[in-house]
């Protein structure tokens, strides 16, 4: 083989790997549901996205240029793709861990978080949601009533009801790049048995901006 043939073979092999990389990325995009169009509501909110020039750029120019770039500089594209996949996995694991804390709030509630000793009837009266337009269930905690009811079922004779407030980590947003940096002030109510919170319910989360 002449050096020219070796060079041509190397370039061809490089481009073939680029095409394989592109195909793999397209498959992942397709599996992730990213190929579907945007909704009518979004279009109505942002009419500038409906112009022919914008559509051409969005649907033709950008995908073609991106595909070309992936084939030509596929090592860089593969590196970016791997980083995105790793970040998605990390976010998913972080989300599951933080959701577990919200779903089982008693894990995170300690005595120092307790604020006020209350009665169950008092809490229900204070947190009763009554909307004049009927856009929420007329019940204590409204849409969150099911969670409250399951907490009430865990009450035993002699238990005390306390309000609590604490700061904890929240699951990352879909549009967040900084996993674990989202924190929120959580307010709710806890069942205290033997001076120890044994079950709790979070009814309000306010994100704390750092």
């Amino acid at each position, binding site marked *: 083989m002449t050096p020219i043939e070796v060079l041509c073979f190397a370039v061809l092999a490089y481009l073939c790997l680029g095409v394989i990389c592109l195909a793999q990325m397209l498959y992942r995009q397709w*599996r*992730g*549901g*990213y190929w*579907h*169009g*945007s*909704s*009518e*509501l*979004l279009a109505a*909110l*942002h009419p500038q996205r409906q112009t022919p020039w914008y559509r051409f750029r969005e649907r033709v120019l950008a995908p073609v240029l991106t595909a070309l770039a992936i084939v030509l500089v596929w090592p860089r594209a593969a590196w970016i793709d791997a980083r995105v996949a790793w970040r998605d996995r990390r976010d998913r694991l972080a*989300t599951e861990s933080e*959701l577990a804390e*919200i*779903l089982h709030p008693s894990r995170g509630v300690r005595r120092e978080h307790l604020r006020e000793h209350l009665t169950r009837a008092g809490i229900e009266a204070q947190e009763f*949601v009554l*909307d*004049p*337009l009927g*856009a*929420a*269930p007329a019940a204590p905690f*409204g*849409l*969150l009533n099911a969670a409250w009811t399951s907490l009430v079922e865990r009450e035993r004779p002699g238990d005390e009801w306390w309000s609590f407030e604490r700061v904890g980590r*929240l*699951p990352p*947003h*879909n*549009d967040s790049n900084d996993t674990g940096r989202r924190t*929120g002030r959580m307010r709710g109510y806890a069942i205290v048995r033997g001076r120890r919170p044994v079950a709790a319910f*979070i*009814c*309000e*989360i*306010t*994100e704390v901006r750092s």
Partner: protein
Amino acid sequence: MTRQVLEELRIDGERLHMRAHPLEPWFDLAGIRSPFVCAITWNRRGYCGVWELVSDRLYLVGLSGTFSNVVQDLNFSEGSVATLFPDFPERVFAHWYTGTLQAEGDAPAGQGGIGEPPIGRRTVIVDVERGRVVRRTERIEVPAAADPSAPRPSPAGGARP
């Protein structure tokens, strides 16, 4: 990062754009992951909500988003949130939300008649506690050229006395 699509806040019949996402605390409180996925770079959170202030209460009246593999427009004509809140398909009272909403839009001139150009930018800041408005402030920023009270340069180039 690509500029993200803004949610809509309707106040007194006017449509403003806001950066806050009052639906996120709902996912946290319900202990669920957001069912929406990013399908387009300018909407990484995967959905766009339409909110309305009625009688000092915050309501979710429209929602559009992309679910895992299926694009589903949740906004049936004038707004339906049935997919996330099947018992309240028209509107749902956002009693879970506590925070500050900052919305922006054009400030209409005079009575805001059709075809009348806006006189500037209107910013509305609404403090919400458990879905109820506790404070609302508003400011209108008028560009110097459009502000009739702003000092104008004299023909000679200096400011008028």
